[in-house]
């Protein structure tokens, strides 16, 4: 399952819950409560607000821990010990990728920079979904580490607007099976 599918499911469920809360309240909004019922509802509302705060705090703490450990971006200011290195230079409006053939099953370090303006180095899998990306920025080299699990032709697509040739600014890398040429 793609990460995007997980995010999409969480989004639909979350927005659905929010919509449900609105619908339930709107359905109960037309008839005014008397003073006693109003005071009772206000007390319940305060209790529920505290529970909502607590629940969100748990999600915040657990979610932050789960998504930040291990940190999803490799250290940039020290050497990374990976078996394959690919140098990438973006220029309006093409990619220079050396080497353009890599092996699946072992990590690859992409050293990405730009010769002119900001570009976006996005790797699209053969099924058309993004698997990883970083920015190509003039004056900086971003190190993106990715471990390809499946062989195939992956498309590099610029994802940072860089002028009139932005949309067609694509490239390709061939990922071969472990041990393949």
């Amino acid at each position, binding site marked *: 399952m793609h990460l995007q599918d997980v995010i999409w499911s969480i989004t639909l469920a979350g927005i659905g819950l*929010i919509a449900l809360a609105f619908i339930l309240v709107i359905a109960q*909004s037309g008839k005014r409560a008397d003073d006693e019922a109003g005071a009772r509802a206000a007390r319940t509302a305060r209790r529920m607000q505290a529970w909502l705060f607590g629940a969100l705090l748990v999600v915040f703490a657990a*979610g932050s821990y789960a*998504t930040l450990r291990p940190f999803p971006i490799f250290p940039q200011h020290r050497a990374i010990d990976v078996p394959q290195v690919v140098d990438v230079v973006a220029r309006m409006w093409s990619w220079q990728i050396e080497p353009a053939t890599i092996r699946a099953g072992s990590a690859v370090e992409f050293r990405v920079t730009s010769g002119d303006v900001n570009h*976006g180095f996005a790797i699209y899998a053969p099924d058309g979904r993004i698997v990883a990306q970083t920015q190509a*920025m*003039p004056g900086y080299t971003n190190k993106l580490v990715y471990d390809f699990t499946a062989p195939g032709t992956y498309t590099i697509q610029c*994802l940072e*607007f860089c002028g009139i040739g932005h949309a067609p600014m694509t490239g390709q890398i061939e990922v071969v099976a472990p041990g393949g040429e």
Partner: protein
Amino acid sequence: MAALTLFPPEERLAGGERATFDCYLVTAMALFVLMMVLGLTMRMSQATWVNVDPVLFYKLLSMHGAGMVGTASLATTAVMWFFLRKCVGLHLWAFVGNYVLFMLGALCIIASIFLGGYGALWTFLYPLPILGFGLWSPHAAALFMLGYLLIGVGSLLFYFDAAAAIIKVHGNLGRALGLQWLFGGNIDPGHPKTVVASTMVIIANSLGILAGAVVLVMSLISIFYPQITLDALLAKNLIYWFGHMYINATIYMGVIAVYELLPRYSGKPYPISRPFLWSWAASTLFVIIVFPHHLMIDFAQPRWLTITGQVVSWGAGFPVFVVTMYGALANIYRSGIRWTMPARLMVLSLFGWAAGILPAILDGTIRNNLVLHNTQWVPGHFHFYLLLGVVAMVLALMFHVIGSRAEAAPNSGSDRVGFGLYVIGGLVFVFAFLDAGHLSVARRMATHLPAWTSTDKVGSLGAALVVLGMLYFAFRITGGLLRSPPPRAVSHAGPAGAAG
């Protein structure tokens, strides 16, 4: 109870105030419709239903982005002014000055795009604006930036006048935010929520605009002295500090309308509370430091900044969900609310804001950003809380104002049809973007792969409905403002009566 009077007499406008306020609203509606038509054109072009040359497409995209952000700011400034003037003594010249500078800035931007050919988008990411590759000259880029500077100066003029007026009444900005009540003490029940929200906007957006001014001046120097180059990462940080704050300030200005109007339509008091003050104090800090979530895939960025971007993005959900959305729902629950247009639009705006922030938080998570950044997920979430949130807040005030002039809250059959078109169209439009983002469809592209056009087509249909709804609103509101009978005698509650 005065706060629950639907159309309190101190809100009536006359003379220069009314003319200026009406100019804001009519201009905002006209610009909203025009910018939406540009948006629809671009979506239809991506859907391959119309043919727009890529050169023109990126001009339209630049105009749409700058135009929508600017118009949202113009409209929500009118919201803030409309309510804040009751609490503190604002100067009309500052409100007029902001409008004049906005219009001059808008003219510069329009000229730079459609006469000068500028097409480096509203984010003017250095060094792209300087390298026109024959499509635009450095002077066109400079004119675009001059337009931004004029609009920014206008905003600062308005904010500084408001800051001075708030300090005159409340002593300092901290007391206006209610910081003295965060840890204890009896909260003054008459302390206006409008003052709290306005103070937050003044602090945060002034900083953002100053950051924008720095990078704009640096870019202008680089345009005229190309031997002077900028650090691309520093420029990007400053641009997003400015850009994020400027557009987010529109939400915080717009929501003032909800705080002020919702209790009048629900008939239930919506009192100030300690959680409310905490949420605004936290939001003030969060909105200032959250911008690094725009630079999560700039790996050269210091790690602590990237982590700040995620943690603060998540934290920003607390004030929205726990205080604003929850408080508003509690307010309307069993209230006997009058479901007229302002009430409908306010509830829609809260839904749009709360629902839109969820995909925003998910995108503001580093791990997710690696696969969502610069896909259509991004316009999906920001259109959610801008189109169905901020614009709905502004429309709520507009309908309230034309209701006040007709002395009846608007609720005609055609209003309800317009509302339905807007809501259904808006939901189809934003979910088409989100679905496209989940399928890895890139944003900001004049041409799309054949596999991407199905969501473009659905999005175009949604956008068409939104344009129809908004076109109706524009005529309805403009007509309501122009046709309304002259107001009766005016009396304003001045600063003396503000703090209560």
